[in-house]
């Protein structure tokens, strides 16, 4: 059927998995010791997280995956550009 390949629709080879629910999306992955990350965003837009502020600590999933807080973030995380440059409280 090579002569029919051009200009004709191809039966997609990925479809069987997609129409039967066997396809794996990122949300479907389960890996050993997998952890979920939730990012708590600022409630007010022109604010920045302060290293002094500690959010309520959510229950860690396991002992080896404690929740992160600003004081444990690398310094660079606080140097992000602020649109109100100069007038941002640091």
């Amino acid at each position, binding site marked *: 059927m090579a002569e029919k390949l051009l200009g004709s629709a191809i039966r997609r080879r990925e*479809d069987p998995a997609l*129409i*039967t*629910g066997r*396809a794996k999306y990122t949300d479907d992955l389960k890996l050993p010791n997998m952890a979920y990350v939730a990012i708590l965003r600022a409630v007010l837009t022109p604010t920045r997280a302060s290293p002094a502020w500690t959010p309520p600590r959510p229950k860690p999933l396991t002992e080896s995956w404690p929740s992160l807080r600003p004081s444990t973030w690398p310094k660079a995380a606080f140097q992000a550009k602020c649109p109100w440059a100069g007038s941002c409280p640091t």
Partner: protein
Amino acid sequence: MQISLTVNGRPYTVDVEPRMLLVHLLRDVLDLTGTNVGCDTSQCGACTVIIDGRAVKSCTVLAVQADGTDILTIEGLAKDGELHPLQEAFWNNHGLQCGYCTPGMIMTAYYLLQTNPTPSEEEIRHGLEGNICRCTGYHNIVRAVQEAAQRM
């Protein structure tokens, strides 16, 4: 809380938190990840399953509400390795691209064809109103449902 339900013909008895959504029971506990979560706000329909014969968005239902019900998900549609006519028709008609909406689309279409075996194009579009597809533009989905209706 302990609940018992049948999913794709298989009985399950599971212990669930009262706040757990049905979609998370299916995906995370029963490992039936074919049912997708597209929005969590009951708009996209990617999570649609058949509960006691009716198409329901499983992100809108608590797992405990499904106690005693009979559920059909995309994984239960093909019988003995034979694709369901809807699955064949989606494949034949390019009724999908990324496929993320497809399990929900197919389950809603399944319900539509159960209640109306010969729907008009308008009825198909109306019937699939609660399902959003970001890829196909719906034309081929409608065609797929039309073809499946003819074959069923």
